[in-house]
């Protein structure tokens, strides 16, 4: 249970993190994580998703296994992470050193009407990730931890997971490309792949 209402703003958090991503590839989960990433500035290294709830981590895992020389960051929400919690077992078993996961946790299904989320109570995704065997986890509640969060997500040997407790905010719409063929081709071209 949260001791106090979170104050971290998702848009600021993501913009500050992506400014220091280096060459990391980003897989953004459906809904708000994709809007947050796009709002911070579009890039060919980003894969936005508009569906397939639960698959942000599996897609990022596949990309990390295929591109071992590139850091891969999955950015997802508490709802999507819990729908695909089992994927943390697969991540742990495959143990890619280049994979990091950031869970934006506002303790609500914000995208669908702010219904109470499961992390509003006793559910602790970072603790679950430790149980699954991820190498390092952390929970961030304020801006003082931004430096440590960046180190974990972009430098620490993976697989790692961070939970950022964020405010339940209302942000301007920021909708990226939704044609999946264009999104996929752009990323593959950036990786030097054909066809």
């Amino acid at each position: 249970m949260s001791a106090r209402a979170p104050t971290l703003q998702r848009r600021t958090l993501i913009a500050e993190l992506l400014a220091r991503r280096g060459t990391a590839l980003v897989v953004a989960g459906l809904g708000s994580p994709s809007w947050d990433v796009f709002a911070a500035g579009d890039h060919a290294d980003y894969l936005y998703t508009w569906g397939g709830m639960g698959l942000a981590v599996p897609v990022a895992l596949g990309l990390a296994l295929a591109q071992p020389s590139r850091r891969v960051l999955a950015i997802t929400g508490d709802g999507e992470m819990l729908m695909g919690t089992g994927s943390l077992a697969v991540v742990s078993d495959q143990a890619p050193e280049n994979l990091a996961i950031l869970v934006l946790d506002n303790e609500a299904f914000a995208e669908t009407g702010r219904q109470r989320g499961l992390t509003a109570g006793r559910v602790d995704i970072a603790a679950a990730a430790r149980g699954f065997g991820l190498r390092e986890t952390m929970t961030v509640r304020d801006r003082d931890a931004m430096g440590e969060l960046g180190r974990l997500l972009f430098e620490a040997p993976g697989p790692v997971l961070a939970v950022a407790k964020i405010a339940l905010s209302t942000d301007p719409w920021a909708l990226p490309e939704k044609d999946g063929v264009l999104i996929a081709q752009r990323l593959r071209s950036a990786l030097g792949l054909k066809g």
Partner: protein
Amino acid sequence: MPSASAHWSQDIFREAKARNITTLCTVPDGGLTALIDLVAADRDMRLVTLTTEPEGIGIAAGCWLGGVRALIAMQSSGVGNSINALGLPAALRAPCLMLITMRGQWGEFNPWQVPMGQATRPALEAVGVKCFPVERAAEVGETFAAAADIAFHSRLSAAVLVSQRVIGAKGFGR
């Protein structure tokens, strides 16, 4: 080209290797045991064991985005778990190659397997997956090759449905 292999799994393994499919994502099934063993023993292939089948759909799409070809293998019951996930490769036009070992079909002992087994092909086709059913062991290899080629060359979702007639119905000690 009918095969002379001792087991149809060897044909799939050979055709997968020939197409540079280097990753097998799977929730194990009895009918997949021989293939899983072949992949696990091969230094150039990666075995990704899943908790639930839709993870494999996402992982295979991520692999393709990064330039690696993957195969997802599951029992037919896993198809029901995977339906919404199949929208992701469809939207990305990412190749999605599935190997489905059937239950609830030919000589099934367990009535709990029958509803999903009977719904497997209609459910896959309803979300746009091209289905390649195979009823004879000697035809598994060529059927898999055909499905793999349409999946990777045309960037579509394709599933090979291996009948219980090929696998043998689970005996349950009878």
